């Protein structure tokens, strides 16, 4: 095996008409193209969800603002949350996993390429269905309306009594459809990683990204089921007169919470474990050292996966569970902190004694480490039941989970974008624009989400379209809103950079980062079949072995 391109030469063909290009993308079953489709879908929804967030922040810039009506504001936070979790974070994670997992384990495609395409299109249709509510939400009542029940749609707000028309049905069906897509993707990840590894790649030699996607896939299989079950029960309530969650007829509001959060909390790890995966690939390469404590990292990931199924009721400390149940869920939640802490220490251990290169992907990873540390610590505060009684449902919680989802997951994703963009496009991005994006986003992120903790401590609940003056909330809300514009500017620079680099960036070559995993052994972008010959590996870092035969990777 050589480090250079081992692709077969492409046959020179006449440029195809655009319709043929579109047709080839729509009908593709190639994991790389499907990965890119997932990522593009997610970027479109990221912009939509970002606009929704901006509308909310403008409304909250001063107390008693009249920028939007309460009804519209409630639709905005519902759509923002639903969009960002189900149609940005999930697809983008699946997209990178789709693109990278087969390349990193030396496979030619995912295990089930057609299921893969089917899963993507279900996700896309799920998103389209959700947004159709803007047109058809009131059904025969007339004008359209998006769902306004919040992204966790607590019963009985979703019952026919409190949610007339069809907006909630669009929400239910959108998630049901995309949930089936998620299951398909998860089956594919697990099957691919278990069955499609190239010769020599034992489980213990897999890149951490593959390990973490395996855990993510297994978790998706388990968590989407209760969500789907709950959506079907809700649909039965709404269409067939069932009473699962209809409190007016003796149903249970708390039952919905249990169903939703046993999905909802592991879901956070479904999203953050792939973020860990990016960090675990990028930090070693830019530190020029192998990951510190590989077996411990694997164990910690699997551990987080298991424990995360036992923490869901920490979202429910205020609903009146008894003190023993509350204490139990406080313990399990705090326990998650242990493997998570181990990971942070291992990443620092990887950097320790290395020779750090602060390229854009590494900058995003370092920001991830700081921000994820803070997100974890505010998580410990929220796990402390009495503290949670004050913080729960306030802006402190909003700040905490945005610290996780933006400060950790989105930052890791930006790092991944810059790191693998040369592989996906064959061209380098512009480093100065990358750094500009980084600094704009860091400033915007910290302006918005650092200061968002404070109104929560001063009693400001989440999901309010306006607030009373004189409670000390004005200045913090103003600062939060200002930060949004820095983040928006960062995103513009990001998109412009990628678009410009795609057209006129300098050629990347197969291995621009002098990296060590298999995806860098094939050309950029890789050919449809990935590898002309199936690679054979003898350690965790096959390309290191090739470049340093005198000091081969430690193979345990």
């Amino acid at each position: 095996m050589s480090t250079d391109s081992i692709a077969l030469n492409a046959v020179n063909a006449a440029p195809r008409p655009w319709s043929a290009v579109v047709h080839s993308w729509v009908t593709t079953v190639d994991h790389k193209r499907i990965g890119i489709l997932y990522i593009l879908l997610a970027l479109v929804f990221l912009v939509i969800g970002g606009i929704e967030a901006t509308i909310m922040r403008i409304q909250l810039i001063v107390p008693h603002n009249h920028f939007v009506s309460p009804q519209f504001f409630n639709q905005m936070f519902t759509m923002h949350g639903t969009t960002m979790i189900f149609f940005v974070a999930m697809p983008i994670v699946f997209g990178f996993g789709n693109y990278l997992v087969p390349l990193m384990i030396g496979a030619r495609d995912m295990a089930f390429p057609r299921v893969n395409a089917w899963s993507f299109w279900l996700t896309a249709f799920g998103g389209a269905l959700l947004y159709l509510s803007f047109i058809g939400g009131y059904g025969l009542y007339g004008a359209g309306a998006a769902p306004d029940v919040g992204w966790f749609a607590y019963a009985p707000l979703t019952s026919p009594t409190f949610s007339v028309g069809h907006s909630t049905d669009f929400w239910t069906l959108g998630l049901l459809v995309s949930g089936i897509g998620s299951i398909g993707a998860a089956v594919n990840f697990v099957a691919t990683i278990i069955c499609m590894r190239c010769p020599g790649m034992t489980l213990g030699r897999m890149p951490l990204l593959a390990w973490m996607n395996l855990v993510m896939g297994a978790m998706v299989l388990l968590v989407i089921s209760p969500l789907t079950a709950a959506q079907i029960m809700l649909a039965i309530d709404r269409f067939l007169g069932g009473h699962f969650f209809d409190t007016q007829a003796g149903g249970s509001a708390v039952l919905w919470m249990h169903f939703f959060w046993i999905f909802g909390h592991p879901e956070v790890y479904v999203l953050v474990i792939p973020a860990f995966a990016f960090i675990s690939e990028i930090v070693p390469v830019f530190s020029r050292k192998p990951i510190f404590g590989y077996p411990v990292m694997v164990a910690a990931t699997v551990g987080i996966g298991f424990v995360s199924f036992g923490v869901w009721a920490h979202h429910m400390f205020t609903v009146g569970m008894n003190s023993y149940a509350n204490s139990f869920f406080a313990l399990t939640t705090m326990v998650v902190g242990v493997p998570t802490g181990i990971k942070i220490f291992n990443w620092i251990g990887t950097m320790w004694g290395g020779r750090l290169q602060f390229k854009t992907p590494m900058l995003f990873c370092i920001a991830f480490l700081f921000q994820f540390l803070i997100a974890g610590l505010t998580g410990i505060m929220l796990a402390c039941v009495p503290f949670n009684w004050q913080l729960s449902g306030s802006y402190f919680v909003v700040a905490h989970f945005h610290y996780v989802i933006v400060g950790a997951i989105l930052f890791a994703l930006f790092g991944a974008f810059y790191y693998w963009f040369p592989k996906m496009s064959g061209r380098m991005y512009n480093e100065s624009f990358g750094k500009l994006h980084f600094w704009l986003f860091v400033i915007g992120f910290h302006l918005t989400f650092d200061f968002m903790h404070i109104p929560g401590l001063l009693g400001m609940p989440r999901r309010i379209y306006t607030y009373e003056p004189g409670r000390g909330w004005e200045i913090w809300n103003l600062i939060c809103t200002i930060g949004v514009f820095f983040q928006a500017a960062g995103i513009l620079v990001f998109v412009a950079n990628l678009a410009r680099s795609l057209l006129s960036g300098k050629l990347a070559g197969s291995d621009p980062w002098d990296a060590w995993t298999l995806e860098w052994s094939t050309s950029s972008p890789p050919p449809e079949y990935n590898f002309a010959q199936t690679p054979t590996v003898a350690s965790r870092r096959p390309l290191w072995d090739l470049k340093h035969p005198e000091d081969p990777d430690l193979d345990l």
Partner: protein
Amino acid sequence: MPGGKTLSCVLALFFARAAFASDSPKIPNIFRPESTPADQIYTISNFTLIISGLIFAVVFSLLVYAILKFRRPVSTDDFEPAQVYGSNQIELAWTVIPVLIVLVLFLATARVTQSVQDARPPAAAVEVTATGHQFWWEFRYPALGIVTANELHIPVSETTSPSPTFLTLLSADTDHSFWIPLLAGKTDLIPNRKNSMWMDPHKTGLYVGQCAQYCGTQHAKMLLRVYVDSREDFEAWVAQQKRPAASSESVVAGRRIFEETACVNCHAVAGTIAEGRFGPDLTHLMSRQTIASGAADNTHENLKLWVKEPEAIKPGSLMPAMNLNEHDLDALVSYLETLR
């Protein structure tokens, strides 16, 4: 001397009202507790914050040190650093230490959780049933036979003779959450479920908060006011709330309008045919400082606007516009203003 007693009662009431009027609400802040549950939460919160702060300081320093110390010099030639794959001793250390921290934090948490949550009401406790409605609060004092709305009056609880208030929390429709940060953590009001919480404020004054669980369109203006009265003021308030509704000949026209329109479907005025319970009880409407669950001050203009066009004050509230002509509107508001 019964006359003197009545006079002092009236005076107390007058001064109480005056005191309220000048008394600006206490700004919510979870770090300035003024009641035992909030204070216990504050203590454990500080403990958690200190531990988190220490962890932050250690990890932050390690990270900053690593970034500054190990950055690659610009001008040296390329060589790879020593390839270190891990260390079991170090892994063990940074596993065991966090486990111990978690253990300590958990024990402290469980202790405070139990002490706040499992407290039993003493004999002198005031019992109140709070029911959440879209988008207002109903308060009933079963032992005193009082029904009121949105503005909760409770007695101050002195350390010498504690009289904490125990709330039973119910919901008539969707989920709500009762949260006065200075007095206690929040507890949800959930349909088909009976929750409880308690508080024993040490100082008098007006404490504000609001619904903390999204409950529908006007969740934002489901505001909450708790008046912690001195023992005497509370007694006076109770006596006043127990009085029957005022009935004055001068506003009989307004009263007729009230009783002949849809008002009575939702509102109650004790001793009249108005027995609706979907909206706030109006028997002593004018004893409250705000209307529309704290969304507006209880002034003549606001009251008139509220009856005429509720959307102007609280869009999405369930109070319908009554579509009265100007004459009837004035008569109706005059009647409401006699409900002291």
